[in-house]
């Protein structure tokens, strides 16, 4: 038998009367487990000669009627061992893929809508200040993974807007933003695209996004204003820092938390988060992302500061990972 009946997790009961149980249990006899006894009781040694005869007669009729030959095996009829394993694996794989997609999409949306604070700006006071327009100080550089709240600096403000992702876009961080910002921005742009565009020009790269070319990341600035919903979300985003801002903002951004897989699908560098810095959460490590974020946060932050206060909040969470990285990257730029 290919299948090994050894007891597995919680398998102590996995003994079948009809020879299905573990061999060792059967061999024991006297020390049969409770499952064996239960099975024995239920089965009660049922012998059914009449039933067998009826079944065999049905078999004969089907066989002679040609019902057995050339029959197509439907999925439900396929119980081959390899197929079982493949089925389980593919289910898992598809579930993971779906979750990752949802997560990233959510991050993108959150980033666009400002629900996620930019990693740098929002980091410091991510949780609280996010909404404060002026409070956000884009301190992206300081973000070193700590609560963006501290950072709050100017960098944070812009960072708050989820969409913006700490991109240093603000200005100086062209280098930082260029890289990571790009990719993330695209993502957020992609996901949040519609939103970002609505809000501000998120897509066109609000300009803040110096990084890559103003990928959606820079939008943050534009977004800042708008993230009406984001502010709250932004904070949540902070938590996302540890977990990609999953949800707090009520926007799909929440998803980020779900899977750190964070596939960087960020268009640009594959750093996913342009958006909401928080998102990087998916990549909780934020390091690589951090770069991106900074780009985003940086760029976005500065301008937004006023508005992004709220979004900044989200940023902090996202930032945790990103900030640390971004903070370093932005350092100079993060702060307005």
């Amino acid at each position, binding site marked *: 038998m290919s299948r090994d009946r050894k007891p597995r997790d919680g398998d102590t009961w996995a003994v*079948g009367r009809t020879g*299905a*149980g573990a061999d060792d249990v059967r061999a024991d006899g006297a020390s049969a487990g*409770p499952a064996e006894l*239960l099975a024995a009781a239920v089965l009660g040694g049922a012998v059914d000669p009449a039933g067998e005869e009826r079944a065999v007669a049905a078999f004969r009729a*089907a066989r002679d009627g040609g*019902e057995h030959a050339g029959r197509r095996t439907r999925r439900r009829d396929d119980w081959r*061992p390899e197929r079982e394993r493949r089925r389980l694996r593919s289910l898992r794989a598809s579930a993971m893929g779906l979750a990752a997609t949802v997560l990233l999409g959510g991050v993108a949306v959150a980033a666009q809508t400002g629900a996620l604070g930019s990693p740098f700006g929002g980091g410091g006071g991510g949780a609280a200040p996010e909404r404060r327009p002026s409070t956000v100080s884009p301190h992206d550089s300081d973000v070193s993974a700590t609560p963006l709240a501290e950072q709050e600096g100017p960098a944070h403000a812009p960072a708050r807007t989820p969409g913006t992702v700490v991109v240093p876009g603000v200005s100086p961080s062209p280098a930082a933003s260029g890289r990571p910002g790009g990719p993330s921005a695209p993502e957020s742009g992609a996901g949040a695209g519609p939103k970002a565009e609505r809000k501000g020009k998120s897509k066109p790269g609000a300009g803040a996004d110096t990084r890559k070319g103003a990928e959606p990341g820079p939008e943050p600035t534009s977004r800042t204003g708008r993230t009406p919903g984001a502010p709250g979300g932004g904070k949540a985003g902070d938590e996302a820092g540890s977990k990609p801002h999953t949800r707090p903002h009520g926007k799909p951004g929440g998803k980020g938390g779900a899977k750190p897989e964070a596939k960087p699908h960020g268009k640009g560098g594959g750093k996913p988060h342009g958006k909401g810095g928080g998102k990087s959460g998916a990549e909780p490590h934020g390091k690589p992302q951090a770069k991106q974020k900074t780009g985003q946060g940086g760029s976005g932050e500065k301008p937004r500061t006023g508005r992004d206060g709220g979004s900044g909040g989200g940023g902090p969470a996202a930032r945790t990972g990103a900030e640390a990285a971004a903070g370093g990257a932005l350092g100079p730029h993060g702060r307005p």
Partner: protein
Amino acid sequence: MGAYDTELGAAVERAQQGDEDGFARAYRLVHPGLLGYVRGLVGDDAEDVAAEAWLEIARDLGRFQGDGAGFRGWTATIARHRALDHLRKQRRSPRTALIEQDVLELPGGQDTAAAALESLSTEQALALIRGLPREQAEAVLLRVVVGLDGPATARVLGKRPGAVRTAAYRGLRKLAGRLAQGGAG
């Protein structure tokens, strides 16, 4: 599931080639567990429901692909469909009110589940199982009585393996508790 699965797989293959004795052998290996499972679902009408299942199994034998363990899972799925159809027609829930009564009649003086199990009658065992929540009862029956492994049980029930593991574990634990209490659980 153990040594019999190899024999079962061989018997099924012979049956698919047209060998009547192979089918009879497969029937003897599978029917007891199948009947126990169906009893846990429908109670008294189990023999009729199981007979219906065997008609379908005999008819669709040409479609089946798999080994002995797979055959158990396949036949359990067919039996389950028949049982659920039967219940729908009868508009009856899988459990009857007699269960508590049966349970109360468990032998006294049994302070361990194992000891209680040893003197457990079929009716009592089934009554106990049918006293469980449906999901737990099915998980226990498929794992313990039919002899399916975790993944196969999950497939028959259409649930995740983790959920099935939990249901089986809880069901068995509850049964053990009830037995230890002499049915007062």
